[in-house]
C-alpha cells in the first residue's frame, strides 16, 4: 500500500474542488409558490376551454401504468401532466411530440435547465406549457 487512508481522504477532498456541483450552483432557483400559482392557472385555463381526450389518456396512464411504475420525473409538472395541459392548449400532435422531446431530453436538459424549484423537498426543473411554439 503506497498511501494511507488519511492521505486518500485528503486527496479526495482536494480533488473534489475540481468537480464543483455545477448543476446546483449555477442554476437559478425559482419560487415554488409562484410556480405552483402559474401551473394551477394554466391547468384551470385549459380545463375551462376544452375538457378533452388528453384528460382520458393522462388519467388512464396516471391511474394505471403510472401508479404501477411510480413517478421519477425530475421535471415540474411531470411529463404526463404536461402532455395533458399542452394537448388542450396546442393540440394532441404537438403536445405528444413536445412531451416526447421533453421526456427523452431530460437527462441533458437537467444539467443546464434555466429554472429550478424545490417541490416536495426535492429539486425539480420547472417547464410550464406556456407557449405553443415548437421549441419553447
Amino acid at each position: 500500500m503506497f498511501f494511507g487512508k488519511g492521505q486518500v481522504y485528503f486527496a479526495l477532498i482536494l480533488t473534489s474542488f475540481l468537480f464543483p456541483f455545477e448543476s446546483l450552483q449555477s442554476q437559478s432557483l425559482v419560487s415554488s409558490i409562484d410556480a405552483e400559482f402559474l401551473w394551477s392557472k394554466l391547468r384551470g385555463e385549459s380545463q375551462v376551454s376544452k375538457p378533452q381526450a388528453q384528460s382520458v389518456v393522462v388519467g388512464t396512464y396516471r391511474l394505471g401504468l403510472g401508479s404501477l411504475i411510480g413517478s421519477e420525473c425530475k421535471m415540474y409538472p411531470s411529463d404526463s401532466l404536461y402532455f395533458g395541459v399542452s394537448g388542450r392548449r396546442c393540440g394532441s400532435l404537438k403536445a405528444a411530440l413536445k412531451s416526447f422531446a421533453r421526456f427523452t431530453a431530460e437527462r441533458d436538459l437537467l444539467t443546464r435547465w434555466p429554472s429550478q424549484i424545490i417541490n416536495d423537498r426535492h429539486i425539480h426543473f420547472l417547464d410550464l406549457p406556456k407557449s405553443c411554439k415548437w421549441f419553447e
Partner: protein
Amino acid sequence: MMAISLIFVFQSLGFLCEPAMLEAEALLKSNQSLLTYNLSTDIEFNRCSARQRSRARYFRLLSLHELGENRDALRLVEGVWPSESDHKKALLFARVFLLDEPTPLSQVWKLRKNLWSNRYEFLTAESHLLNLPDKDGEIRNLLRDLNHARRYSPSLVAGLSLIPGLGQSVMGDWSSAGLSLLLNGLFGYATYEFYRKDLYAPSVISGTIFSITYVGGIVQAGRLAVAKNKFDSQAEEKALRQSLFREILD
C-alpha cells in the same frame, strides 16, 4: 396574549410598516412574486404612510408583471396612487413593459424599449444604441455578452437533427443524441422489416412510432438549444434589463 395585543397596537399605529416594507423588498429581490404581492397588499391597505403605501403599490405592480398578470397590472396603474411620483413611474413602467402599441414615450425610453425587444439581434439592437447615452459602453458590452452567450440557433440545430442525433451531438448532448439515434434506428429498421415481410399492420404501428421519434428528435434538439441559450445568457439578460430600466425596476 400580551404580545398579540402589543402587535395589534403596533400595527394600528403603523410601527410595523417599515419592517414589512423591507421584507417585501427582500422578497421581490429574491423573485418571490406572489409573496411580495400579498405582503404589499397588506401594507397598502394598512395604516402606513402615503410614501409606504405608494411604494407597496409599486411592488404589487412589479410582482404582477413578473407573474404575467399584465391585465391586472394595468388596472393597478390606472387606479389611485397615494404618491404622484410613483404614479408617474408606474405609468412609464406600463408604457415600457405592459403596452405593445405605440405609446407616448420620450425618445430615450423609446430607444431603450426597442433595444430590449431586439436584444437578440445584435446589429439591430446596436443601431438603437447609437443614439442612447451609454456610460463607459456598459450597455454595448452587456449586449455583446448576451449575444455571445446565446450560441446555438434552434432552427439550425433542429435542421441538423434531420440526421437523428446530429443536432444534439453538436451541442454536446450525447445522451439525447444516443437515445435519438437508437430509437430512430430501432423503429426505422422494425418498420422496414415488417414491411419487407408483408406484415402491414405492425409496419403501420411501428411507422407511426418511428414518425414520433423522428420528429420528436428534431423538436428535442430545438428545445435543447433554446434551453441552453436561456441558461447561458440569463445573467447577462438580467444585467442588461437592470442597466436599461434601472429607474423603473428599483
